């Protein structure tokens, strides 16, 4: 690591001020991406503003129509939450399958979304459930949030406060983990709600994206059988030493069908 100034603000407002005042400040939440990056000397921030312990950002509230999760809520907390398990079991399952226990005990939902790793789990749920991301400045719809590889709609100095998930009628998540990292080689989240059917894919592109062909096919028949004939093109999908674009395209179909079976199960 290179040297940096460390701050642990007592409130969100103070965190905002510190972040804006820093020459090249970074927020530290769970640190599961940032800290390894710093250890590798791949970043040299002037200031780290640690919001990981801000009580006002760590909560889970459910009111029957939606579940709201504070930005610094740990994956393990979401996975174990009775409210989440009751309202959106697929979301609890997703949180319980991120990384390993160490990652789940430290990593936060806000950190994951702000980072927008192409292979992260949460973006699939946020996008498929049509969640809203609440920041210090505004509310951002999931559809407007993910912009590209590690790129989101967040502006400099803007901090995620919470994410609210509408409670769906049915939802399911299935992930095929990259064997080494256990990130998503492909993850598919399917959701049926009053507003319609949404299918989101993570791990396969520069950031999470919706699979509209499947959404169309599922609109009238929310079942695995309905998408049997939907072909997923490998064009533009990620490719690496673990997985070609062609295999990823195939896995999108398999994971989607399995997620549907789970959602209906």
């Amino acid at each position: 690591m290179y040297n940096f100034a460390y701050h642990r603000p007592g409130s969100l407002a103070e965190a905002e001020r510190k972040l804006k005042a820093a020459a090249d400040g970074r927020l530290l939440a769970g640190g599961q991406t940032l800290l390894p990056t710093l250890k590798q000397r791949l970043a040299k921030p002037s200031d780290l503003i640690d919001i990981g312990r801000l009580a006002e950002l760590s909560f889970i509230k459910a009111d029957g129509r939606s579940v709201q999760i504070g930005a610094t809520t740990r994956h393990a907390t979401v996975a174990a939450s009775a409210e989440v398990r009751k309202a959106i079991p697929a979301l609890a399952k997703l949180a319980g399958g991120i990384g390993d226990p160490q990652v789940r005990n430290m990593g936060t939902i806000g950190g994951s979304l702000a980072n927008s790793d192409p292979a992260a789990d949460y973006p699939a749920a946020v996008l498929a459930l049509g969640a809203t991301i609440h920041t210090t400045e505004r509310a951002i719809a999931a559809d407007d949030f993910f912009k590209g590889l590690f790129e989101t709609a967040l502006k400099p100095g803007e901090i995620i406060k919470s994410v609210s998930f509408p409670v769906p009628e049915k939802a399911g998540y299935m992930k095929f983990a990259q064997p080494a990292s256990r990130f998503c080689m492909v993850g598919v989240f399917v959701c049926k709600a009053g507003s319609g059917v949404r299918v989101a894919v993570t791990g396969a592109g520069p950031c999470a994206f919706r699979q509209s062909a499947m959404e169309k096919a599922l609109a009238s028949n929310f079942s695995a059988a309905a998408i049997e004939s939907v072909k997923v093109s490998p064009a533009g999908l990620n490719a690496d030493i673990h997985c070609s674009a062609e295999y990823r395209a195939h896995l999108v179909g398999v994971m989607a069908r399995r997620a549907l079976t789970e959602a209906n199960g």
Partner: protein
Amino acid sequence: MTETGIGARVKRKEDFRFLTGQGTYTDDINRHGQAHACFLRSPHAHAKLGAINAAKAKAMPGVLAVFTHADLAADKVGGVPCGFGLTQKNGKPQIEPPHPALAAGKVRYAGDAVAMVVAETLAQARDAAEAIEVGYSELPAVVDTAGAPRAKSAVHDEAPNNVCFEWEIGDKAKTDEAFAKAANVSKLEFVNNRLIPNAMEPRAAVGEYDRATGNYTLYTTSQNPHVIRLLMGAFVLAIPEHRLRVVAPDVGGGFGSKIFHYAEEALVTWACRKVGRPVKWTAERSESFLTDAHGRDHVTKVELATDREGNFLGLRVHSIANLGAYLSTFAPMVPTWLYAPLFAGQYRTPAIHAEVIGVFTNTSPVDAYRGAGRPEATYVVERIVETAARDLKLDPAEIRRKNFIAPAQFPYTTPVVLQYDSGQYALAMDKACQLIDYKNFAKRKAEAEKRGRLRGIGFSAYIEACGVAPSAVAGAIGARAGLYEAGVIRFHPTGSVTVITGTHSHGQGHETTFAQLVSDRLGVPYDSIDVVHGDTDRIPFGMGTYGSRSIAVGGSALSKAMDKIVDKGKRIAAHLMEAAVQDIEFKNGAFRVAGTDKQKTIQEVAFAAYVPHNYPLNELEPGLEETAYYDPANFTYPAGTHIAEVEVDPQTGQVEVVDWAAVDDFGNVINPMIVEGQVHGGIAQGIGQALLEGCVYDDRSGQLVTGSYMDYCMPRADNLPSYRVDMTHTPCPHNPLGVKGCGEAGAIAAPAALMNAITNALGIKDLAMPATPERVWRAAQARGARAAE
């Protein structure tokens, strides 16, 4: 059997300190005034080294020194030596280019050390390393193992075609003859995938120089501190052994990668005198990936000739083995003498010929990794035997039984040099088949099919040669050291015992096993016995731990030392009880006068030896401490059968290892729980090789692209089934304990069993390791396409 004696499942003594974070590893050692080292490493796989400008780095805060090869040359520091000299088939020695401790003239792999920075703090050392300017002019990288001899670039001028050696074993003419008359020849070509060891504890070293005495101390992560003292003292730094102490404290796993002498440990020892401060270096994980010696990496063609009934007539093997950029300590031995002599397997194959070409490439050095040559050999034999069974439509268990060497045939001399001492191969096969319920496999397969899963079963009837090694044999084939072991039994006046061994425990539980052995034999309470290892100042000598040798060679040395203790004890007891020595019997910790109830406990005898008020001083020296050296008469030959069962999800290519039966013969067993643990861990590593682990270098640039856990997949608990483990016990006839060694068996047996199972499930001939989901999916697709035709 007592609760702590031979055969007892005693919980490990060392676990309290390990599990409570109280172990003392090399990085835990901090010496007064210690400075920190870091190494600037080449980002290029192959490049000419131009000017190195360290002026800026030297002027940075806290920097004590920046060293390059020029500094080493000025001090006449030697290169890193190879401990094995192979004779090629043309009678010439292997090509052995120099291995400078810091790169000289050229860098030869990504990670090759170019400069060493020593600073007050680690962060300062790293900052300074970043400020060193190095002129590289890139050269084409030699990466591909099979293509190395034809590459346009030479890793070393001394080996223009990148060939280090061409070596052969066996009778070529006789083998050709066998093939000529064969009814069937089965063939396979495959790669034995390269592995990165990944011990939990990265390598580390602390060097310290005492100006008052002129003595050096090196704390290092080693499996064999005496070997490091010998190699580093004699060949690199010219420090006589009596002035050099090497300590290998708690070591968090080695798997072979900590056998070798590495440049970094020599450099901290050299630098600590240069800067007048103790110097510590600890590898970062990224550094471990790049610079720990890797394992395996063969490209092999194998053919097995059989008659119509499946009797083996001849075996022919050709392998190209990647040695990496420099010859690591035992590199030339691993793909030759530790590999090809195992080609007889458990079988009576009458004619065998094998050829191995060792090549240099611009990759990290390759050396012994758990099993070292024998997993590769087992993979060759057990994959081709399985293939022959399929070609001939024979049951895979039957074709093996038909060819097993029978118990009555021991000692059995194979066509590839070894003399097997003992074994009951069919017995292990039968037990393994029972354990896994082989006869009902078809039912399980049908049931899986209903769930959309392809179920497969695979055998691996392995043998290994371990308990290394008879020194005369080792010397004859090229080892530049003996391979005996030393042990000391030291009684203290009040009856407790210190056991000193030249083997080294880095996860194997020797502190427990050896204490059990001594407790059982001498009747001293287990808790009164401590085991010392890993310090050249406390141990007479030792060759360390690798090649499943600790109990077979180190344990035998202790056994001999205990014989001497008992002999001396009898003479002391005879004096104390005023009886004739020949009338004294030793049993259950007491010396008795035969036929009487007179006895002296061994504690009383020890006390008499140290407080010799009533003692035969004119015949015997006081004290009760004995040292023994043991040089084995032969290798030991653990063997057994492993059977793997898998289920493949053809839609995703995911392989689940659903069952595993392992029946091993390690001869006599001291602590079955520890032995089972070794089997479990070994199988996990073997499953890792077959299913998950694959070191990948970019084939053009020579960059290591699986250089972190993001891309290099280590086996985890959820990748593994619950194993069914059992044993047969055929005592080793030539060592005093009848033991054979168990450390490597799992890793040796497992890859072949698993790949036989996966190819069985998919109904295909072969699949490359690791069987990644995409590879398996593609094979399943192709199979589906064939089925549809």
